[in-house]
């Protein structure tokens, strides 16, 4: 049994010790907003926040999470910057297919939480690990800047 705190709720899950958090969320808990993209931390679709910090859940063994609080896309609106980022995403119509956007939003809101006024360089550092196959990068950049002003 592994004890996890997911979106403010304590959960006990009976899963193998090496099982990445991604699959615990998706296949055991049923929170499917966090996506599987590559399985090797190269695309960022699986990004969740641990104590507000973005991590790639596809390579993060659930057993190593410990007491850190897990926030997924389903609850990001409750984080300091989550709602602002979501609103900016809709205002600027960032989303196309949307599959990578859970991860993009988790990375972006964590960026804004720690850095309320990110520069282009800050955005490069925080967002380049998240691949978007639809090519929404320019709008992601613009939306982060818009959210920072909101």
């Amino acid at each position, binding site marked *: 049994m592994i004890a996890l705190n997911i979106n403010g709720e304590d959960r006990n899950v009976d*899963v*193998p010790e*090496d*099982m*990445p958090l991604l*699959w615990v969320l*998706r*296949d*055991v808990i*049923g*929170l*499917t*907003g*966090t*996506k*599987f*993209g*590559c*399985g*090797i931390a*190269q*695309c960022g*679709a699986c990004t969740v926040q641990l104590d507000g910090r973005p991590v790639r859940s596809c390579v993060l063994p659930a057993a190593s999470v410990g007491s850190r609080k897990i926030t*997924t*896309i*389903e609850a*990001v*609106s409750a984080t300091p910057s989550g709602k602002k980022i*979501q609103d900016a*995403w*809709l205002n600027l*119509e960032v*989303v*196309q*297919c*949307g*599959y*990578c*956007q*859970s991860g993009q*939003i988790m990375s972006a809101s964590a960026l804004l939480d720690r850095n309320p006024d990110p520069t282009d360089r800050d*955005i*490069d550092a925080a*967002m*380049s*690990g*998240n*691949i*978007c*196959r*639809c*090519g*929404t*990068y*320019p*709008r*992601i*950049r613009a939306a982060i800047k818009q959210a920072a002003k909101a």
Partner: protein
Amino acid sequence: MSKPSSSPSPKTGTSRRAFLQGGGLILGFALFGVGTTPVLAASTALPVDGDVTAAFSPDAYIRIGTDGQITLILPNIEMGQGTHTGEATLIAEELEVGLDQVKAVDAPPNDKLYATAALGGQATGGSTSMRATWEPLRKAGATARMMLVAAAAAEWSVPVTECVAKLGIVTHQPTGRQLAYGALADAAAKQPVPTEVKLKDQKDFQLIGKSSRRLDTPGKVNGAVKYGIDIRVPDMKVATVAACPVFGGKLQDVDDKAARAIAGVRDIVKLDNAVAVIGDHFWAAKKGLEALNITWNEGANAKLDSSNIMAALKAASERKKPIMARQEGDVEAKMKAAAKKVEATYELPFLAHAPMEPINCVVHVRSDECEIWVGTQVPAIAQGVAAQVTGYPLEKVILHNQLIGGGFGRRLVAESVAQAVAIAKQVSYPVKVIWTREEDIQHDLYRPAYYDRISAGLGEDGLPTVWVDHVAGGSVLGNYIPSGWPEDKLDDDAVEGAAKPPYDLPVIHVDWVREDPPVPITWWRGVGPTHNVFVVESFMDELAHAAGKDPVEYRRALTKNQPRVAGVLELVAEKSGWGTPLAAGMGRGISLHDAFGSFMAAVLEISVSPAGEITLHRAVVAVDCGVTINPNTVEAQIEGGLIFGLSAALYSGITFSEGRVDQSNFHDYRILRNNEAPKIEIHHVKSTESPGGIGETATVSAAPALGNAIFSATGKRLRTLPFNRDELKTGGTEKKSVSMIPPLTAPLLAALATTKAEEPSETASEEL
């Protein structure tokens, strides 16, 4: 009032009948037949099921419930391109409702009913959606509105002409009396279906041409929407699969002892050419798969290598009898008479689609029926292959189409659905099959490789007097149509973008040699034009250079009779500041084309470092896509399409060694990242022409604009994709290499080695 939303067909909707049950007004429309005839208006449950009724052939439905809920059942699939919003806009414009008053859902599979004429089957692809639905969906909306207005007029016993509809409410103008659509729905269904429908004048458009909010996005920023991969049905298990790493190979033997010992592994399922492990969750399945000891019978392709494939293409191009695509004027005479002859050879690689959502499919095969949940661009084909695999009749295959996390052509084929059904057939419970990214990259159906020889003769003025393009590559159509494509017949896709370049070229010869590769191929974003326009536009730049002319000036001279082409050319030249000086190491490249009914010119500004590294600075795009239904969506598609194409031009290429695909995941099938994307500016040419396609248009522009920019920055013409940046090195300090062997022994060993080996080790000899 309902929230704007877009969703796939509801889980419970097992048939079209279910969509149409309940009260209110339901209108079905045949979009792609002769005219747009409403064939159905009913206020009660349908007497017949559309699947089996030849008399009805509606493609789209408008349903207005008595509660005021307006549902649009749309023929095309939403996969990020904004089709649902666009199609809803067309209906809503004439129906006189706001986009926030409607809900858009995918139609269930039915090839007869939802065939997109351009694709010859129920499919979403080829940038066809808005082009195909532009007239019919507006007529559909207008028809429904007229019936609602007529119902209101009858209710008030007033002339129809005194009533106006707006935002879902009919108002009797003289008295100010109002009735909402919901209240009118039942009565409207009893009104006769109008035979003459007049559409709005373009100047009166309220929604078309405005950047309305997309319907499908709110649920995509909070994790609420479900893609195919998110489907969970009761008692479902999860499988992952390994197909023979060599195409055409078969499963010979599998030792599953270790896999079965892994906690959570339920079943191991063998297929003819693959093996799947089913587990309680994906992790168990994946670990189980890794623990299998599989022996493959690799078959005929075991030694397949990219260099063989390209050599075969080259040989075919030079020796095989081509199929003529276009021939006008006396090519030979003009070539002889030319003041100058220019020729070049271009090579393009296989490409994987790599949509962000990995291939997946949920299937439950029961004793008498098969239920499928999958995001597909071709629901009817998917249903068909499932019927084939199960042996069930078509109506016993229930398919729920889902939102798609990226298609790009990958989901225009349903081979993975067939595989999933074959797996699920062997177990009693529902199975979600998920491919790993590695499986996705290594078992795609690829955009084919091409080898094109192109030449032109130039007149005294430097302009081409004759143009010859020999295309060589596989037939995508031939691999797409189950019955194949005649060997001697032209596959238009192979020469699309080459046969009719948007230039005044009176003497032209374009042909195609078909050489199907030994690996599966299919459509890829931008289809034929992505390949051909790269060749045509790169070569056009070569000609301009050979003639000593500015590339824009040169194209201007060749588009005098192509007003829409010239229009985007002028606009892009102006907006990009074409001709203004650039810093050293920078370059500007242009690309011009028409495809999918749209016209586009793009200018890319880049810099190339002495080490050969390319930085993308700025892209300026001018587009004429006819009437713009949703400018924001058009711009999003151009931005995304361009980045998709740049990604491929810089990094993508599937290669084979020892029969296997060399790439496997995003670390080696590289995708452009946020910090590499250029700034993109988009400028529209105002137009009242029918809308053109936009989902793939900018992808086509990317590679030629980049190649031409590279030439402008470095003077080097790269004719092979992806661009080999190593060829762009111009210098920089080079340190002597370090020794890889113990320093003391190096001289001795090197001396000994040089006496024997034909090739002395490079590191060793440098030490001498």
